[in-house]
């Protein structure tokens, strides 16, 4: 088909300078987060034409709701755990898959344990930030923006794209898979990120005729949402064109079917989202930063079965993803990292669950990692004033290592500072 001239060839960012608004919502307003910068007043986006330092790829997996770190990387020998969690501790300790004398993985993380045995898993313990908030939404924003002072509105990955990559003509540089909206981590107020809920249905009903009509309809749209609309359509059209090619040449080399039935059915089909991520990676679409989400981790109630099932669901999806990448010879390029807004309270509640907590471990998976436990084991006996685990590693230390060491981006510029190093990469690409 003939490519539309006009918006498709204009820089998406140019459009967005015309005024993109982001509604932070009432909760955001109350939290002092609602700043909507005047797009014109912002510094001009510094596009680096050939800014891609390497062809490494990052896949962030959000465990939304606050993942229980103590049930993910289980302390095996600390008797205090049984005092704090009389209902929850027993089976989780006895069934854990030992990594060291003192720590083991949740028993449903067998696939990830297998990757650990092959030297593909690094775990950073005690990750958090000072003066933690126990609000999901505030803490999610802090992790997404990489800014505990809550001034920043763009996401840390959105800023990475803006500063390090030229996404014009590369709609898939940053992509959220398996969702309908742009995750905060990828948010860049001056750019439209690609979002694909399901590649099988992504496209215009009615085909290229509709595609062309809509391309003509959404051009120079006036008003505060005009640029956002136009770039969303242009991005969709670019993405459809790219996917048309990639779908034809991708054959999954792993079984992505869900092997675990969750207690509460999932809104996010994690395995399907990771399969789409794999497709984008192995077919050379130029994808750099991918984001997927698995919800359901807010286990205030009957945590025992729910969390174990979530671990199994995560494990089967990540295992298939790694196997697929590996079979396609791409495993050495891809770093998989989990994140969650907080861990959970060490002491369990009356509902057989745990309330919002603070520090927790993060998993880093893939060929680029140097296997091992990093950070510091949080103490179960010296909790903070709210009864929560004290953090040992600032989450931005992990971001810094990913940005500089894996993506070759300027982490100081993106994060606005330098942090203690956590050397979980085998061969960092840039001196940190």
């Amino acid at each position: 088909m003939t490519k539309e001239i006009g918006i498709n060839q204009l820089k998406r960012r140019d459009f967005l300078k015309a005024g993109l608004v982001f509604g932070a919502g009432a909760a955001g307003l109350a939290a002092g987060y609602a700043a909507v910068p005047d797009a014109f007043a912002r510094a001009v986006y510094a596009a680096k034409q050939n800014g891609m330092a390497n062809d490494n790829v990052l896949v962030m997996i959000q465990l939304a709701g606050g993942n229980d770190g103590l049930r993910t990387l289980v302390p095996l020998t600390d008797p205090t755990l049984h005092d704090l969690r009389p209902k929850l501790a027993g089976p989780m300790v006895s069934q854990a898959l030992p990594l060291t004398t003192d720590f083991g993985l949740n028993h449903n993380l067998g696939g990830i344990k297998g990757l650990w045995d092959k030297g593909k898993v690094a775990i950073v313990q005690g990750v958090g930030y000072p003066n933690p908030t126990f609000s999901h939404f505030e803490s999610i924003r802090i992790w997404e923006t990489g800014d505990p002072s809550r001034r920043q509105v763009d996401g840390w990955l959105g800023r990475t794209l803006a500063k390090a990559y030229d996404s014009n003509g590369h709609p898939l540089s940053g992509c959220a898979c398996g969702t309908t909206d742009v995750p905060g981590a990828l948010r860049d107020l001056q750019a439209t990120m690609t979002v694909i809920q399901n590649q099988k249905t992504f496209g215009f009903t009615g085909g290229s005729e509709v595609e062309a009509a809509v391309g003509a309809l959404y051009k120079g749209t006036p008003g505060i949402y005009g640029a956002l609309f136009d770039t969303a359509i242009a991005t969709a059209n670019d993405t459809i064109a790219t996917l048309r090619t990639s779908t034809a040449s991708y054959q999954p080399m792993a079984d992505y079917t869900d092997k675990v039935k969750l207690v509460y059915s999932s809104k996010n089909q994690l395995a399907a989202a990771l399969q789409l991520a794999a497709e984008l990676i192995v077919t050379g679409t130029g994808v750099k930063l991918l984001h997927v989400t698995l919800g359901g981790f807010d286990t205030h109630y009957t945590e025992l079965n729910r969390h174990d099932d979530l671990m199994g669901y995560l494990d089967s999806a990540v295992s298939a993803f790694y196997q697929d990448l590996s079979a396609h010879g791409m495993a050495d390029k891809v770093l998989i990292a989990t994140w969650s807004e907080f861990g959970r309270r060490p002491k369990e509640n009356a509902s057989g669950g745990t309330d919002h907590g603070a520090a927790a471990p993060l998993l880093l998976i893939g060929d680029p990692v140097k296997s091992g436990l990093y950070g510091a084991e949080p103490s179960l006996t010296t909790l903070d004033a709210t009864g929560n685990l004290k953090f040992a590693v600032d989450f931005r230390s992990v971001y810094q290592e990913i940005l500089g060491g894996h993506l070759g981006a300027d982490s100081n510029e993106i994060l606005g500072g330098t942090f203690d190093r956590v050397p979980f990469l085998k061969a960092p690409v840039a001196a940190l």
Partner: protein
Amino acid sequence: MALAQVPEPTTETPPPARKGITRRQALAAAVATGVGVGAVRLLGGTIQNIKRSSAATGTDWVSPLGRESAQVMQLLRRTTLGYTAAQLDVALADGYSKTVDRLLETPPQEPPALAASSTPGGRFAVPQLQQWWVDHMLTTSTPFAERMTLFWHGHFTSDYRKTGDNTFMYWQNLTWRRMALTNLRPMLMQVTTDPAMLRYLDLATSTGQNPNENYSRELMELFTMGAGNYSEQDVRESAKALAGWQQPPPDSIATVTVDKVKMVTQKLPVFTNQRPGVFNQRRAYKGSVTFLGQTGPLDTQGVIDRILAQPATATFIASKVAEHFVTYQPSASYVARLADSFRRSKYDVKTLMRAVFTSPEFAAGSSYRTLLKSPTEFMVHGARALGATSAGAGKLIAAAGSGMGQSLFDPPDVSGWPNNAAWISSNTVVERVNFATLALAQVKGSVPSATDVARTHLDGVLSPQTTNLLNQAPDDRTRWFITLASPEFQLK
């Protein structure tokens, strides 16, 4: 459907973005220098060919809100879930003020009872529940009640997944319709003891001895005051004070065969009469708590009344209402005025909504097209405009929302749905366009006349692109497609 051949784009590349000036200054400059604007106001409902803009980007819609008819249409767009040509005529004949009265004073039409709601364990399919609501949205004579029910569904939200009993979800929907324009004080008591909410935020399993903080926190953070207006200690203390509520007992127990092959049966509760949770004194906290600055024994009503005594509560609710009904970024002074009126009325929601609809800000040119229709609003508006109110349309709408980010009874999280700009992504715009195609396919035979659609549904304020495509459309079906898929129709 035959689409007009798409013309070669004649729009020139926009000039380099102006730096250091605001969008509105750029627009004013463009107008002053006669460069032209990207939106035109078409009078008399006829579509005219207009000169293409050479600097469309950065221009704004020209507000028609100086005319009362445009104010009426905006009111309907923002408060109802769409209208037919006949319904619009009634509102235009009544005028703005009378239409506001009618919206606020007409008691909500109850939806037909959902027979499946007495299914043991509430185990009927969620699409059945979704379609039951959508069907009512499509046919109700009081669509404002549905708009408000949707607002409260996103505010005092629960999802069917965790609630795990669709009868309770159904009840919650009935509750917000009945209470939509009542008073925040009884609404807060109702949401606290609502059976779906008792499960969704775990209050039903909390005890005074070992409280679960989930409901306590979200009651303050998301339902009333907003983050930053209470302490972590307040969360813990009110969790104690609120503990003791449990699910209501069922009307009966049914023995249900859950596995016909292995002949496995299960005893499931059957609920036929809607009622709130019950308080179990034995699970309650015995003693005094220190909550929001006061110490002493405290029950659930006491927690609610202390929250209502905080100035932050009215501000938080007023701010959210303004974002959903008036403008994406309401000014602090406007929110303060609305909050003040809400507080003085002792939290009467109807008073708040009347204050919103009669405020100068509501009809101000600066608020014109600053709100985005949620997926449900967009789809129901479209279907009502097309007269597509059959069961097929209801089924389509109930299913199509998820790709646009809104699946009823299944909010993304406890903060409900986001609004405005958050509705736009490369995935959701495609799904919105696809809905236009599929909704038209629901209309067998001829579609309603689209001759006047630019006036009746787009205020006659169209971008040059929309104008062009409508002008070139060969038939009414194509005109409806362009209209429903247009950026103008996504806005309200």
